[in-house]
């Protein structure tokens, strides 16, 4: 860890999907690069790098952020959830099941971002209605599906939440 001539580093301790990770990072390290390159969590994708497309969405302390434009240093002490954190490796998360059931993906590149955005919404106090889902997801771009199956997938999970049924 001794790097006398390297660039200055910032110590960060981040809870990533329930695992505490401590690293020294450059101040300019972006959370998307930290996750993908330092930790090998390549489920989070990167595309527009302008906070417009939403594919790099992860949750920082439950809030959706664009990991492409979020300094790793700002995640120090926070809990970060990525798409890898949705499932335990055996059972899919209800949102993932619903995306499969509703054919809510084709190429799949935008899917991690949509899943994390949807999770942030469904983790709120009230299960959202269709209008709230459409509004919340309007900052995510999908080039394959035409959005309807995605909205329906999220709506189904919200309906199950509202009904209190297990799912």
């Amino acid at each position: 860890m001794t790097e006398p001539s390297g660039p200055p580093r910032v110590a960060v301790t981040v809870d990533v999907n329930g695992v505490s990770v401590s690293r020294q990072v450059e101040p300019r390290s972006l959370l998307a690069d930290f996750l993908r390159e330092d930790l090998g969590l390549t489920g989070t994708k990167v595309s527009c790098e302008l906070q417009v497309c939403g594919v790099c969405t992860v949750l920082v302390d439950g809030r959706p952020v664009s990991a492409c434009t979020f300094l790793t240093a700002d995640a120090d002490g926070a809990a970060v959830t990525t798409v890898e954190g949705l499932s335990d490796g055996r059972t899919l998360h209800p949102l993932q099941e619903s995306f499969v059931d509703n054919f809510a993906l084709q190429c799949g590149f935008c899917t991690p971002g949509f899943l994390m955005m949807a999770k942030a919404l469904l983790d709120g106090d009230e299960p959202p209605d269709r209008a709230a889902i459409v509004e919340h997801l309007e900052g995510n771009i999908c080039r394959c599906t035409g959005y309807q199956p995605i909205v329906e997938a999220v709506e189904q999970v919200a309906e199950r939440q509202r009904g209190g049924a297990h799912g």
Partner: protein
Amino acid sequence: MTLPPFALVRPTTLDDALRELSEDAVPYCGGTELLLAMRAGLHRPDALVDLKRVPELAGVRVDDGGLVIGATERHADLAAHPVIRERLPVFARMERHIGNARVRNQGSIGGNLCFAEPKSDVATVLMALEASVTLAGPAGRRVVAVEEFVAGPYYAEREPDELLVDVRIPLRDGLRGAYLKFQTMERPTAGVAVLADEAAGWYRLAVGAVGEVPLAWSFGSLGEIDADDIAARVDPTPDLSGSEEYKRHVTAVYVRRALAKLERVSP
């Protein structure tokens, strides 16, 4: 794409933050504008002065008949804030619809104003509300109206050694307000705010996004507001969201719609 290298400074008091600022050490909060500008090569500061640990720059309170919003408050928190939702619902609703949910969770109100993005919903509504900002610098504090602070496209009246401390919005009992925008891309084509305080005979209209800066006007009654006259008064910038002629047309349509919406808003 990687950002250019920089040092990260994290002061915990306003005085320390002010001491760190210079031409090459710039204020940093949510990064929704600054990091994009740095990645695009438009900006290459030596240091970012992170303001998120400075308590004097945070918080929302009612003070002296006005709402005081700390510069580092994020849009999502302002949209959900109970005092703002009760006292200034038009402002809370605008905050709930700016950018997208990620931008609202990262971006701050102070950063939005300091970047003076020409299509900022925040600046348009604040100008209509006759809001002002408090700036702190080595020589002390000064208060500047948002209409003067947002001086040009991507240009705010802030000296490099100054910080925007808070935004101050006068509160009016019985205020009614509506903000409507037309948006097909990530930023609006036109945004229109209309406000009415009948008891005080105070009426305001602001139009943003069409030109280099939002513009606001006062009226003696709602009847004085002529949508075609407003469309003639704005100074549209032709861009990907429309030509000058198109933006004037959209402005007139949205002034009419905002007035119609205001009629349905109860005090």
